[in-house]
């Protein structure tokens, strides 16, 4: 290797991880009554901290605190004042950005390059964006006096812990709701640091409550009768269970679930950028992305050479220490997730698809999976239908635009799609036909607080971001 990049580790001195963490209820840290659990660094398997588990009494306390804060404080503030608190939070997130990024990489396993350049800045941007809506709701198209719903129960996943928190908390608070949020059990630390930020911003107690725990805590939270709104991002399976749980209760619900997006490359695509789009689409964040471009649909005429170019490109991907600034592929978030990826990729081999990975030095400890390509995949393979949620790309081919559309839409999911072609009319034609909530043309995995995000079909309903995202948290008086 002529040009070996020396290790370039980001220092962890900036974070101060406590040995144990409490719940954050009513503006204070308070111990939970459940059984504490640990959160580990998936790159090293070392325990980072002990986390409280919220039991039923804690859930009740948290909801009561959110209710009290809503009734007595938050609903009485003007939109402008709510906005000011959100601006404060946005600023502090920017100020403590490096600290948040390091903590996120330690707890989640994602490369520091991503948490530093994507997760944290966009999370802060969400607070900034929604802060400005707080006093302008009458212009948003929901009537002249839209009201908040009350208390929102929010459950978020482990793939973008702080970013998902921002997507949930910012619009909820801007529209006048108070929240009880449960971060994922494998990635609670940035949410708990966010609680500190709420204190630093002097956010009125009870407006934001963070309760840690696993599935059971989430279930109790969703079940609580004094919750007005439930927002969930996570697996389709759990999403369906939640939808069943709230049936008949009048609780408003939005779901952001799984996906199996098609990334479609035509023979006239700007091919070098398309290769970057493929790589970004499935290997960014180790493929732990609901809108990942996990199905590559290549026009048959360019399939072979594109796969060769892709393989060549994959050889420059660097897998390893998430805190190394040159790492492109970090750790898989948990042993559980790793096992799931291993199982599904095995099924790919069993069903006859051809598997390839670049040579990768895999560290001894931690959870790792080399970026993988499966070629000769067809719609009938499990790896073409089921969400793997890992750095595994399934490659299929198509002959004509109609066929590309058919294959792309032939799924119970509908979160996102990618289209690569230089022909303008075809971009718009294809975008029109994609049954997906987000369509990226000649780009991929772009997020912005002003851009609504959400799915069709079993990828969920409701949108987050943009003016459309506000609707999920507002009560409009419909006459009929």
């Amino acid at each position, binding site marked *: *290797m*002529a*040009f*070996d*990049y*020396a*290790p*370039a580790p980001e220092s962890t001195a900036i974070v101060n991880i406590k040995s144990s963490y409490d719940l954050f209820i009513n503006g204070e840290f308070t111990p939970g009554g459940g059984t504490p659990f640990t959160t580990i660094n998936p790159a090293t398997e070392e325990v980072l901290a002990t986390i409280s588990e919220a039991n039923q009494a804690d859930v009740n306390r948290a909801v009561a605190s959110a209710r009290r804060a809503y009734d007595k404080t938050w609903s009485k503030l003007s939109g402008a004042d709510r906005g000011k608190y959100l601006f404060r939070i946005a600023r502090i997130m920017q100020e403590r950005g490096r600290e948040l990024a390091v903590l996120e990489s330690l707890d989640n396993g994602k490369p520091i*390059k991503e948490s530093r*350049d994507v997760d944290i800045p966009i999370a802060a941007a969400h607070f900034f964006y929604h802060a400005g809506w707080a006093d302008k709701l009458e212009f948003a198209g929901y009537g002249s006096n839209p009201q908040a719903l009350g208390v929102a129960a929010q459950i978020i996943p482990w793939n973008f812990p702080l970013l998902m928190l921002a997507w949930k908390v910012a619009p909820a608070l801007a529209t006048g709701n108070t929240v009880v949020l449960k971060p994922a059990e494998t990635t609670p630390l940035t949410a708990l640091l966010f609680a500190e930020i709420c204190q630093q911003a002097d956010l009125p107690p009870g407006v934001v409550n963070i309760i840690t725990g696993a599935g059971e805590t989430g279930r109790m939270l969703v079940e609580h009768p004094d919750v007005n709104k439930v927002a969930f991002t996570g697996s389709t399976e759990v999403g369906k269970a939640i939808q069943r749980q709230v049936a008949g209760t009048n609780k408003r619900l939005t779901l952001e679930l799984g996906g199996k997006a098609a990334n479609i490359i035509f023979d*006239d*695509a*700007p*091919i*070098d*950028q398309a290769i*970057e*789009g493929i790589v970004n689409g499935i290997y960014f964040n180790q493929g732990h992305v609901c809108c990942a471009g996990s199905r590559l649909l290549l026009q048959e005429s360019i399939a072979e050479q594109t796969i060769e170019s892709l393989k060549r490109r994959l050889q*420059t991907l660097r897998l390893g220490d998430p805190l190394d*600034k*040159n790492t492109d592929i970090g750790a898989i978030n948990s042993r559980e997730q790793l096992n799931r990826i291993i199982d599904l990729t095995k099924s790919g081999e069993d069903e006859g698809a051809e598997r390839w990975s670049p040579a990768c030095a895999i560290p001894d400890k931690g959870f790792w999976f080399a970026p993988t390509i499966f070629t000769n995949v067809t719609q009938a393979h499990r790896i073409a239908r089921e969400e793997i949620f890992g750095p595994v790309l399934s490659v299929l081919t198509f002959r004509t635009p109609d066929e590309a559309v058919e294959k792309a839409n032939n799924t119970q999911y509908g979160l996102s799609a990618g289209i690569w072609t*230089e022909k303008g009319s075809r971009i718009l034609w294809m975008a029109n036909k994609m049954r997906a909530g987000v369509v990226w043309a*000649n*780009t991929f995995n772009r997020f912005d607080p002003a851009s609504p995000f959400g799915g069709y079909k079993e990828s969920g309903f409701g949108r987050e971001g943009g003016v459309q995202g506000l609707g999920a948290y507002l009560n409009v008086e419909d006459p009929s």
Partner: protein
Amino acid sequence: MSSLDAQAPATHKGLHAFLAGLPGIDQVGAEARAAALGTRSIKKDSKLWAINTAISMVDLTTLEGADTRGKVKAMCSKALHPDPTDMTTPSVAAVCVYGDLVEAARSVVGNHIHVAAVATAFPSGRASLAVKLLDTAEAVTDGADEIDMVIDRGAFLSGNFSKVFDEIVAVKQACGTAHLKVILETGELKTLDNVRKASWLAMKAGADFIKTSTGKVTPAATLPVTLVMLEAVRDYYQETGTRIGVKAAGGIRTSKDAIKYLVMVNETVGEEWLTPNLFRFGASTLLNDLLLQRQRMLTGHYSGPDYVTID
């Protein structure tokens, strides 16, 4: 891809069709890729290696109307021994001067490093073919073993690709054994699509190196433009088995910049290109910044302008 014999004049239609058939480039995507490569953090051993490599890739340049034999000789001394306080410092790859000062340069550098002459009515390229060929021939006679020519951008932008092609072929012939760098002047080509087309045209016509800029137009070398050229060189190698070099010239002033280019070379075409035979920096002030950074890495403390020579 159409088969174009680099030695024979191209048919206008065939060349047109070939260039039109090249894949397009999404500017936003290309810029994003170049910027992403720029976030690589190169430290310690790899940084020292990169600095030494960059120094060895510099074409130390002076191309001013006010150049004199004295000025050129001083620069050439520096080119041979860039850092008199540390004789382990690599020498640069070449010196780059106007054709009429080649003899002065040769008299100092001997055969130790290359002497590159700009030719073909540099920098504008606005002269007859006869004048351009004479310009080339005289520089070669005087001892230049590398010729940096400019393409006719007017012809390129008006779609007269055959004229551009034929000129390169003729200049290559006039070079004899001298190696030919073809300057695309990317700042005037404006679009990345044009840069890709011009790169392929130059390679098909016989260039040994493709070079970004004259340094007389802004913008000169940029990361996205160089990325596109490296991709063209990579694809050309896939197709023909021949490695063409790339020279990024103008606007690269700091070691940090230079290292970004090396990372880009490494991850786009591969480590085979990390040699002065296949990658060059056309620069003047860059060398001193490389030397300052090298001194800091070897001594442990920050250095200052008094510790590097002016050329």
